[in-house]
């Protein structure tokens, strides 16, 4: 039987999605359901003086109106940060309470203060307009850079500072800088982004008064985790009385990791009114209240020798958390950011210092790449600048500082098990025709255009997060994954996974893996996920972890099945278990060449005696049935890496940046389904290029979101992109049996610095902030013209 791993198996999920048969949360309608509308703060910062619902209660169709008072009275807990971060001085991070419905204070535009539940959506909206809230508007803090000088947002949190965290050794860095021939320094902004999943958030909550069970259908990337948080911290219901189902989910990019206010409020309220409640976000609510991503202000320095050896690295970053610290809010700008900020280089001394601040803006949390795009942007912009200042070719300078031996003990935290960065660079250069750039630049010049080329070499730590590694860093929760592989008596297989697919094609990739492991046709394998009532507890999908962690759990569970199969076969065929081999779905006794198919073994496990009436096929000590579970906790992160090269052409008269060429050469370890991986790379690139050239979430000084719709927030479109030139090198991960590394975030990690390096190259080294919009680039072109004129 040919192996399915490595082949372009068509996606099992496509038929359902392409024929309109997907089942998303908003498609779920329950008998007698009501509709919820949230009353949200129009102010970025205010105290609530009075909240009057009398008029709204009389509005037609209203079933109930609940406010921050009721939710506090019922002792329903708030939203939480999942990771505890300690400051450099040893103090614990400071997190404000974040009640699901604000009672006393609101802290960003969109912060919910009440929920209106009515018989119809129109009636709920109508009534919501009649809820009267009397606010005392306070001065908002909106700027990341100035947040520490603003008014105190949360009582007791001085300077709006959640933590002031250090990773690395300041003294060693100082010594390295003292020895340097040159120090390259850079001030950069990592712009704030809005994830914009195609499917807006939604939830449907139901309560069964007889079983006292709440069922919550929700747009989540991790239903088990949501249930745990809602139960343990939200006090909504004990876990066995709370079922969370995340059916088809139309994209997450990190924005659907969090348990949100609406999940908690609707679950709690459904029980209170003893009816089902449906809530579906409007797009403008998504803009305002989904978590946002990035938003760093960074000063970084690189100490170098004159021939281009890196000696030391400093990274001083202010990270905006928004109004509250949410689930991945504190770990994203620390452990997911700091260790990767030294990039793919041997830098003997380094530190990253992060001040995480609160502002009156939407909470900032993990968004595709989470911390690693910010890290890569920092080091790769710095290295590009170093190449300009040192006059060393950008690819040579990088190669000069690549590690050559693996495992590579990276300066700050990670030990990178495998990789070949030089091979990746060489292949990328060839794919991009790096040598031919100068000729293309001249051609552009002849047309009056400016052409630039940009390079990025990156690595990232994904497959989050090995418990041992995470705990050694002192930050709490490790993230393993579970799988259960269950045979039916007649030989089909159901795989339950704790991962969640919201665009990642698990139904296909995971089935390919199981098919290879078990020798069962892929048509006979179903992947089940997304329901806490089906399958064991699992951690969900983010941080490019599904394959490298969840996939390995499946492999391990399959291996246990095979082990049991060998024992059963041995009993049935009167052989020694050690003499039974398993290949392509058959158990073969090597000495006699007698065999049993895995289907026959499964049947025998469930119905002992039907086939062989004389004696049970089950060995002593083995129970009937064929079902195995595995919890896989990886020994280390996995480390995808690669080199990307972009070329842009700029029209100096309009400032328009045209992305002419984009080459991505990645090392994802073993690739299970190349088609799926291409899709992931394309999507990541689109978002990364979007960050560099188009997307930006902008608040004004009063905390109003200026880019609250697609009329102003630039989502990239297909015609913004060239044909992507994609290739791979491959070194297998040594830390997992499949040798896989993860590919979900690479594009979003590598693309922003790649594109910006090209833009800045075209602009003669002038710094431009992301996104490189026409006007910014036009201004830089004018400066360039002026300085060229002066030089001439």
């Amino acid at each position, binding site marked *: 039987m040919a192996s399915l791993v490595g082949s372009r198996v068509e996606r099992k999920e496509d038929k359902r999605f392409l024929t309109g048969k997907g089942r998303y949360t908003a498609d779920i309608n329950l008998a007698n359901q009501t509709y919820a509308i949230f009353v949200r703060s129009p102010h970025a910062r205010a105290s609530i003086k009075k909240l009057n619902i009398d008029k709204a209660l009389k509005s037609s169709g209203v079933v109930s109106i609940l406010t921050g008072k009721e939710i506090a009275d019922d002792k329903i807990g708030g939203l939480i940060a999942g990771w505890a971060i300690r400051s450099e001085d040893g103090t614990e991070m400071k997190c404000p309470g974040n009640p699901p419905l604000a009672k006393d204070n609101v802290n960003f535009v969109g912060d919910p203060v009440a929920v209106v539940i009515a018989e119809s959506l129109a009636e709920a909206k109508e009534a919501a307009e009649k809820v009267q809230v009397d606010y005392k508007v306070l001065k908002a803090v909106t700027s990341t850079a100035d947040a520490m000088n603003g008014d105190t947002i949360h009582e007791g949190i001085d300077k709006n500072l959640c933590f002031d965290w250090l990773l690395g050794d300041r003294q060693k860095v100082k010594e390295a800088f003292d020895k340097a021939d040159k120090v390259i320094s850079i001030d950069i902004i990592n712009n704030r982004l809005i994830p914009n999943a195609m499917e807006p958030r939604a939830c449907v909550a139901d309560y069964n008064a007889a079983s006292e069970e709440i069922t919550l259908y929700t747009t989540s990337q991790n239903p088990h985790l949501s249930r745990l948080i809602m139960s343990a911290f939200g006090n909504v219901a004990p876990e066995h009385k709370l079922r969370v189902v995340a059916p088809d989910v139309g994209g997450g990019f990190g924005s659907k990791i969090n348990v949100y206010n609406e999940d908690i409020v609707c679950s709690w309220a459904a029980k209170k009114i003893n009816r089902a409640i449906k809530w579906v976000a409007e797009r403008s609510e998504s803009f305002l209240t989904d978590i946002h991503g990035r938003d760093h202000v960074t000063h970084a320095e690189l100490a170098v020798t004159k021939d281009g050896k890196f000696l030391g690295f400093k990274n001083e970053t202010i990270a905006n958390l928004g109004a509250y610290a949410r689930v991945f809010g504190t770990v994203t700008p620390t452990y997911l950011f700091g260790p990767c900020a030294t990039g793919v280089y041997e830098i003997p001394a380094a530190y990253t210092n992060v001040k995480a601040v609160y502002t009156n803006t939407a909470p900032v949390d993990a968004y595709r790449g989470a911390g690693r795009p910010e890290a890569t942007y920092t080091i790769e912009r710095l290295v590009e600048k170093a190449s300009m200042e040192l006059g060393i070719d950008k690819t040579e300078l990088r190669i000069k500082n690549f590690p050559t031996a693996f495992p590579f003990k990276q300066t700050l935290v990670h030990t990178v098990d495998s990789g070949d960065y030089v091979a990746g660079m060489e292949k990328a250069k060839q794919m991009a025709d790096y040598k031919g750039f100068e000729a293309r630049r001249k051609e552009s010049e002849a047309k009056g255009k400016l052409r630039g080329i940009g390079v990025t070499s990156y690595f990232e730590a994904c497959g989050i997060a090995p418990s041992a590694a995470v705990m050694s860093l002192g930050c709490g929760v490790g993230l393993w994954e579970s799988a259960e592989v269950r045979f039916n008596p007649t030989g089909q297989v159901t795989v339950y996974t704790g991962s969640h697919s919201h665009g990642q094609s698990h139904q296909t990739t995971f089935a390919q893996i199981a098919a290879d492991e078990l020798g069962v046709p892929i048509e006979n394998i179903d992947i089940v996920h997304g329901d806490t009532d089906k399958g064991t507890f699992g951690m969900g999908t983010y941080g490019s972890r599904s394959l490298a962690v969840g996939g390995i759990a499946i492999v391990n569970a399959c291996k246990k099945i095979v082990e049991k199969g060998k024992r059963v076969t041995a009993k049935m065929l009167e052989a020694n278990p050690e003499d039974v081999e398993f290949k392509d779905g058959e158990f073969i006794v090597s000495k006699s060449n007698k065999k049993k198919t895995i289907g026959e073994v499964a049947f025998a496990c469930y119905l002992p005696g039907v086939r062989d009436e004389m004696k049970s096929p089950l060995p002593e000590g083995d129970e009937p049935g064929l079902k195995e579970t595995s919890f896989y906790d990886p020994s280390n992160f996995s480390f995808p890496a690669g080199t990307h090269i972009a070329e842009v052409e700029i029209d100096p*008269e309009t400032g*328009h940046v045209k992305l002419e060429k984009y080459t991505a050469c990645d090392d994802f370890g073993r690739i299970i389904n190349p088609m799926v991986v291409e899709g992931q790379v394309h999507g990541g690139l689109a978002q990364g290029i979007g960050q560099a050239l*188009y997307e930006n979430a902008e608040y004004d000084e009063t905390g109003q979101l200026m*880019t609250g719709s697609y*009329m102003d927030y630039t989502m990239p479109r297909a015609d913004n992109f060239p044909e992507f030139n994609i290739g791979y090198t491959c070194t297998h991960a040594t830390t997992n049996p499949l040798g896989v590394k993860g590919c979900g975030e690479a594009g979003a990690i590598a693309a922003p610095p790649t594109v910006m390096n090209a833009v800045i190259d075209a602009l003669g080294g002038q710094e431009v902030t992301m996104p490189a919009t*026409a*006007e910014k680039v*036009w201004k830089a072109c004018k400066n360039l013209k002026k300085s060229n004129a002066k030089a001439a």
Partner: protein
Amino acid sequence: MKDFNYHSAKDSKEASKLASSSSAFLAGGMTTIPSMKLGLATYKDLIDIKNIKKLSGIKVSGKSVIIGAATKHVEVSNSKDIKKAIPSLSSLAEGIGDPQVRNRGTIGGSVANNDPSADYPSACIALNATIHTNERKIEAAKFFKGMFETALKKGELIEAIEFQIPEKSSYQKHPNPASRYAIVGVYVAKHKGDVNVAVTGAKSCVYNDKDMSKALSGNFSSSSIDGMNLDSSEMNSDMHASADFRASLVVTQAKKAVDAC
């Protein structure tokens, strides 16, 4: 969205009879429906004009192109006759919004709405258009009064728009990257006697840039407007483009248009 009454008018007369101070005509609905959904506008009555036969269709004669008001953007962009007579007009239509918008939005709706960043108003000015309504004929130069303001009276219905076929013409738009409306769009048309340089997106209302028109009437070459410094004091300024940038873009897009003629 608040409840409203839906009417489908069978002719212009019925449509204008149904109109009141709390009604709107419903053509493509691409402006009206989103503003109602967002609560920016409320109407008691929507009067659908798509079924009025007289309002659709494209007629090309020797001198002019007449387009029925309810003609969709996609029909203008695909029309072989228009492609032949005024290719720049079909490419303008092709550059409006996205396919969904082009499949529903109409030329009459766009002209009646007079959004300061819309594309068609510049075509009307550049191509010396005449707006045919159920009551009269209005010259484009007198039709666009200000931001979202036109010479239309309450209940007056645009039936067709008549464009003069120029010798040469081109429309060059620098789109807003998010909405793809014009940050600046410049429609240059060379007619027998003179040249029009219609500018949209730059100010509160579409206008004919007299200085550039004059320069180009003298010498129809982009060099005659190169380096022109426009007064930016009345230009729009927003997060996508400052007034100065817009002023520069007007000249750049005009040059591009002349070169493309």
